[in-house]
């Protein structure tokens, strides 16, 4: 039986940030961390870079290798929590280790969605969320000299994988169910810019379609092609399924913790059970833009939630104000950033949709696109393509709900900066103790 | 010998002790020649005490010596007995001294020190005049006054006209008046001056009025053209030994009126000449006249701020500079004409005048005796009043 003051299940962004936050307050309280992956704190978004040989395996580390020592963490890596007893405040690991905790953080993250389809178990069909996934893909490519691959899902993960594969000289076809790629984060124009760029590096994007079946190729048990909804067939040696992730909530569900689409938490990131907190992709927290609780599975959110949860576990009292969905991704050499509500069409609420205002600057030849979505003179969404410098200023304006009426004419200017902001706000930003976002 | 008086060495370049001064002035004249006591003028000038600073005050009075009206009345100031001795000797050489005596004064607290004050009533000696046929009686008087003031150490001629006298000294004017017992005199013109010199060489001779023959001048302001006015006068043998603007003004009047025989009205237009722009607008003949005045008498133009009251036995004239940089107010009440720096100084002695007005720049206020002789018995004279106002009939402003 291990007794610990703090127990963290998970070893990714939320977990690591929680560790650091706890240690800011409590240097000495015992802290255990359990992860079913056998790795040090690696950064999941980096796996596509790893795949594309842009970074070495060591560079995947999210924190230095002395992280556990520095923070006095007893890490149980490659060991899985099989049960959680909330009443006893105890977990049991796969290897039968019992851990008694005072405070628990569930940072179990998400798991890749694998839609049911024929041929899904063939060799050469992969999801792409963990380092293990990446290593498997990498090994497969190396062993089988993959020339052509199909990526199912034109979201961010799909496209990052695509980029990695392209870097490995693999010809990629992207299959997207929606009418365009990146439909969840971009509007039509931005999507089109990226589609065009992908085409430029030799990728095909097939939209409004889906894979009906994965077929075996000549060699036994390995992918040979995919068949689309319209019966057309695409030859490939590998299929990457990147249609999304869902919160990993099995453990919570079994322990009787309230769930929505993810683990439900209050503003202190506490679950329905006293002393049990949750953070990261597993959580359903308030989305400031959608104005409702939902999982926002992005890295900054996980980090922030991890920090706040850790802070509150160690006796602090910090409020998590909510998430703003955002993404920064460079695709086919084009940097893009999207924050918040980027396309009114995404909104179900028609009244609200109609109240939105859009200002934009699209320079087609240079593939530069800037779009700002305003609601009641406040920015609620931004898309920046190919001109992303100082994007965070918009993010700040979104978060602080700053009335931009008096300087909206400057918003799209290339030299838009703090000087365009109201003096007082600007001063607050520059002089204020620290800036939160 | 007389020429010696005018020797060039007298004319030191403008000395820095030329005394710019500000002041208050007041003048009263009865055009009918009716004489009245000095009390009024003392009262008037006293009201403007703020305009002076106790470093000079003085009065000119006309008609005060009716019994000795035929003789030149010389008011002398002596710092030493030796000065008096030399002066007496000098005077006897040219004049018959008909009468002489100390100028009566009274002791008052604020005036502790005064020079020896003496008055003479003089008649030029016939033999002297005969020897110098080109020298008029008046020229002789002028040269005498200049010689004494300029050459005899510690002696100074305060006034030298007939039936008039100048009473001046260091102090506030009302104190000077009291000191000289002016309430005991009666005259038909009185002018007064309260001085605000920018410095104070506490010098009795430096006080105003300045006098020569029967001229007296009280003046407020500073003549910026002093340097050239003085050099101009030197051409005509005036020696400016007092280094005051007032002296220069006096000589200019003497020169232009007595010697050049110009009327007061024209002299006013020389001293405070109209601007060229005004002359340009005049009818041709008038234009030519005024052009000529300025061309010939340019060096006599008094430039800079001044408000001046000039008197002689027949006239009292108030004049402002051409831009009216100094105040001057005039009033009339019956036969009386009043001129002062401030209206209140008039109202103090004449609460309800018939008319009060502010003359315009360069526009003379002229009070004149109605008949050319009143020295002896002013009351018997028929007189006509005439107030000249720059060719403008209506008094208006």
């Amino acid at each position, binding site marked *: 039986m291990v007794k610990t003051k703090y127990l963290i299940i998970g070893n990714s962004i939320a977990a690591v940030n929680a560790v650091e936050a706890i240690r800011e307050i409590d240097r000495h309280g015992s802290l255990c961390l359990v992860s079913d992956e056998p790795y040090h704190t690696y950064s999941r978004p980096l796996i596509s870079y790893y795949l594309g040989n842009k970074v070495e395996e060591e560079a995947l580390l999210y924190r230095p290798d002395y992280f556990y020592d520095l923070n006095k963490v007893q890490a149980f890596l490659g060991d899985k929590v099989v049960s959680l007893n909330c009443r006893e405040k105890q977990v049991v690991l796969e290897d039968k280790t019992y851990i008694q905790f005072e405070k628990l953080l569930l940072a179990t993250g998400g798991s890749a969605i694998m839609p049911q389809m024929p041929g899904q178990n063939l060799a050469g069909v992969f999801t792409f969320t963990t380092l293990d996934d990446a290593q498997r893909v990498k090994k497969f490519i190396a062993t089988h000299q993959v020339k052509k691959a199909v990526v199912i899902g034109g979201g961010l993960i799909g496209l990052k994988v695509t980029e990695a594969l392209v870097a490995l000289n693999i010809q990629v076809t992207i299959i997207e169910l929606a009418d365009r790629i990146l439909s969840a984060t971009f509007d039509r124009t931005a999507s089109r810019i990226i589609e065009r760029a992908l085409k430029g590096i030799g990728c095909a994007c097939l939209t409004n379609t889906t894979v009906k079946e994965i077929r075996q190729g000549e060699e036994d048990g390995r992918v040979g092609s995919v068949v689309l909804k319209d019966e057309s067939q695409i030859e490939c040696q590998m299929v990457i399924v990147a249609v999304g992730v869902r919160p990993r909530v099995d453990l919570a569900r079994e322990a009787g913790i309230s769930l929505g689409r993810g683990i439900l938490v209050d503003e202190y990131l506490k679950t329905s059970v006293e002393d049990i907190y949750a953070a990261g992709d597993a959580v359903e927290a308030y989305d400031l833009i959608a104005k409702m609780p939902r999982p926002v599975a992005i*890295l900054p959110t996980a980090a922030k939630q991890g920090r706040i949860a850790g802070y509150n576990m160690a006796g602090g009292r910090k409020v998590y104000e909510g998430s703003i969905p*955002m993404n920064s991704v*460079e695709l086919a050499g084009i940097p893009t950033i999207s924050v918040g509500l980027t396309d009114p069409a995404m909104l179900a609420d028609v009244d609200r949709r109609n109240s939105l205002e859009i200002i934009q600057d699209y320079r087609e030849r240079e593939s530069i696109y800037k779009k700002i979505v305003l609601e009641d003179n406040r920015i609620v969404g931004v898309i920046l393509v190919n001109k992303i410098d*100082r994007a*965070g200023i918009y993010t700040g304006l979104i978060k602080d709900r700053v009335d931009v009426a008096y300087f909206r004419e400057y918003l799209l200017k290339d030299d838009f*900066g703090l000087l365009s902001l109201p003096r007082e706000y600007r001063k607050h930003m520059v002089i204020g103790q*620290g*800036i939160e976002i | 010998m007389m020429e010696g008086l005018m020797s060039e060495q007298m004319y030191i370049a403008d000395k820095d002790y030329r005394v710019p001064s500000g002041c208050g002035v007041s003048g009263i004249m009865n055009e009918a020649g009716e004489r009245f006591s000095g009390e009024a003028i003392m009262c008037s000038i006293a009201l403007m005490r703020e305009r002076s600073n106790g470093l000079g005050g003085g009065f000119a009075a006309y008609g005060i010596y009716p019994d000795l009206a035929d003789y030149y009345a010389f008011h002398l100031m002596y710092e030493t007995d030796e000065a008096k001795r030399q002066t007496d000797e000098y005077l006897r050489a040219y004049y018959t001294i008909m009468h002489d005596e100390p100028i009566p004064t009274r002791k008052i607290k604020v005036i502790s020190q005064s020079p020896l004050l003496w008055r003479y009533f003089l008649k030029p000696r016939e033999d002297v005049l005969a020897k110098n046929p080109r020298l008029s009686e008046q020229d002789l008087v002028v040269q005498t006054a200049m010689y004494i003031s300029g050459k005899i150490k510690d002696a100074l001629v305060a006034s030298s006209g007939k039936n008039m006298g100048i009473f001046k000294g260091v102090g506030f004017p009302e104190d000077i008046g009291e000191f000289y017992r002016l309430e005991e005199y009666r005259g038909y013109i009185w002018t007064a001056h309260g001085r605000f010199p920018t410095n104070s060489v506490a010098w009795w001779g430096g006080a105003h009025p300045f006098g020569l023959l029967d001229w007296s001048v009280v003046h407020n302001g500073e003549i910026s053209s002093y340097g050239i006015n003085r050099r101009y006068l030197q051409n005509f043998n005036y020696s400016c030994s007092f280094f005051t603007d007032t002296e220069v003004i006096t000589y200019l009047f003497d020169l232009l009126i007595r010697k050049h025989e110009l009327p007061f009205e024209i002299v006013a237009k020389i001293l405070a000449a109209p601007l060229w722009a005004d002359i340009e607008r005049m009818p041709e003949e008038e234009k030519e006249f005024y052009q000529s005045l300025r061309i010939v008498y340019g060096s006599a133009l008094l430039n800079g701020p001044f408000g001046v009251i000039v008197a002689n036995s027949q006239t009292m004239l108030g004049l402002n500079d051409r831009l009216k940089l100094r105040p001057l107010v005039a009033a009339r009440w019956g036969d009386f004409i009043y001129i002062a720096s401030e209206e209140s100084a008039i109202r103090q002695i004449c609460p309800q005048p018939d008319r009060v007005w502010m003359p315009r720049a360069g526009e003379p206020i002229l009070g004149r005796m109605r008949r050319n002789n009143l020295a002896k018995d002013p009351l018997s004279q028929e007189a006509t009043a005439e107030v000249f106002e720059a060719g403008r009939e209506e008094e208006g402003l």
Partner: protein
Amino acid sequence: MKRIVIHEEYCMGCRLCEIHCLVQHSKSKQIIKAYKGEFPKPLPRVLVEEQGYLSFALQCRHCEDAPCLEACMTGSLHRDAETGAVICHEDKCVGCWMCIMVCPLGVIARRREGKKAASKCDLCAGEKIPVCVQHCPNEAITFEER
């Protein structure tokens, strides 16, 4: 910690801070060389914003709750334990620009020549006073305990 304080009203917009910052973060640390002979071209980590007559030199505020630290997916952005400064480990950075997305001041720049990396103020690690402050002729930026 000691921070760079901005006095906007006295920034004359000379950009000497940028120049000296650039030099400080160049290989040679010699101004003429840094400008005329280095590749990749060194970048200043301070940015002078100008609009009309207003200007000010802006560099990382090293926020207490730095959003860039939370957004950094590689862990290359970290807080220096000693100085409290937010530092970017440029070798580790992959140029995902998440930090740019969240930095409300917009003070993280993209280095595009050579290895892509986030380029930001490091308070001139090793200098007692950051060079931008040292060279600001008008004390429009000062280094103060805040």
